[in-house]
């Protein structure tokens, strides 16, 4: 593995959250280069694991403007071509309002405020649920 690839992976750590569910927290700025790196990492991992869902948490993204939204749409389209649904989590009230004010249409992309909601949604779609152990 070359240094560039290693750096790409370190900046965009994608993890298997559950069988068929991946998660990628995005922190910092997202420019075209970073968006391409994120897409590459995600697609490679989807290809490797055949996962059905990927949660992209954007809570740590400094600015979510129309450019970032367009990157998100592109990434989502690419994952869907591989049979994987992207759920965007970490949409703060401020980001939600600015997306509306900017007139950005995220189309059919599923968005949630919290990662836990995104995870629950993915599990539900997979026909799974988390139940509390009665003994505890």
């Amino acid at each position: 593995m070359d240094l560039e690839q290693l750096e790409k992976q370190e900046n965009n750590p994608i993890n298997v959250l559950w069988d068929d569910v991946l998660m990628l927290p995005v922190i910092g700025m997202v420019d075209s280069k970073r968006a391409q790196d994120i897409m590459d990492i995600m697609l490679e991992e989807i290809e490797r694991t055949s996962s059905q869902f990927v949660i992209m948490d954007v809570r740590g993204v400094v600015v979510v403007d129309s450019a970032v939204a367009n990157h998100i749409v592109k990434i989502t389209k690419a994952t869907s071509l591989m049979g994987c649904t992207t759920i965007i989590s970490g949409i703060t009230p401020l980001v939600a309002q600015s997306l509306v004010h900017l007139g950005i249409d995220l189309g059919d992309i599923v968005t949630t405020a919290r990662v836990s909601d995104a995870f629950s949604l993915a599990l539900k779609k997979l026909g799974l649920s988390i139940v509390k152990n009665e003994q505890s």
Partner: protein
Amino acid sequence: VYPIHEMIKLVDGYGIFSIPADVDDATLPEISSELCTFIVQHNVPGLTFDLSNLHSVDRALWSALIRMILATGSLGVAVNTTGICAGIASTLALLGSDPTSIQAFGTLDRCMTDLKNRSKNHRASL
């Protein structure tokens, strides 16, 4: 005439059509025509397009593939795709391709399960 019989595999009556690696946009319309004829003749209820042999596409080839998929779907057949590699997905996203016209799955098993469910529902609604 393309040997469609050799390119399509029937599993429980459902078709799996493997797109050849050397396919190009000029030959696809003819393949598409042969494929549609095959589907009607054999009363195939659902078809999976397996794109795993393809390692790259350009805009023209992808358009031709989409036209073939849409033509097949217009026969009232449940259609989905599998085997799109990371490189192709990335290229298509950058080209601004709209993936809503196709239903993609990560594995062939999921494709076949979806086909069977959809064609069952379709028949139930008739």
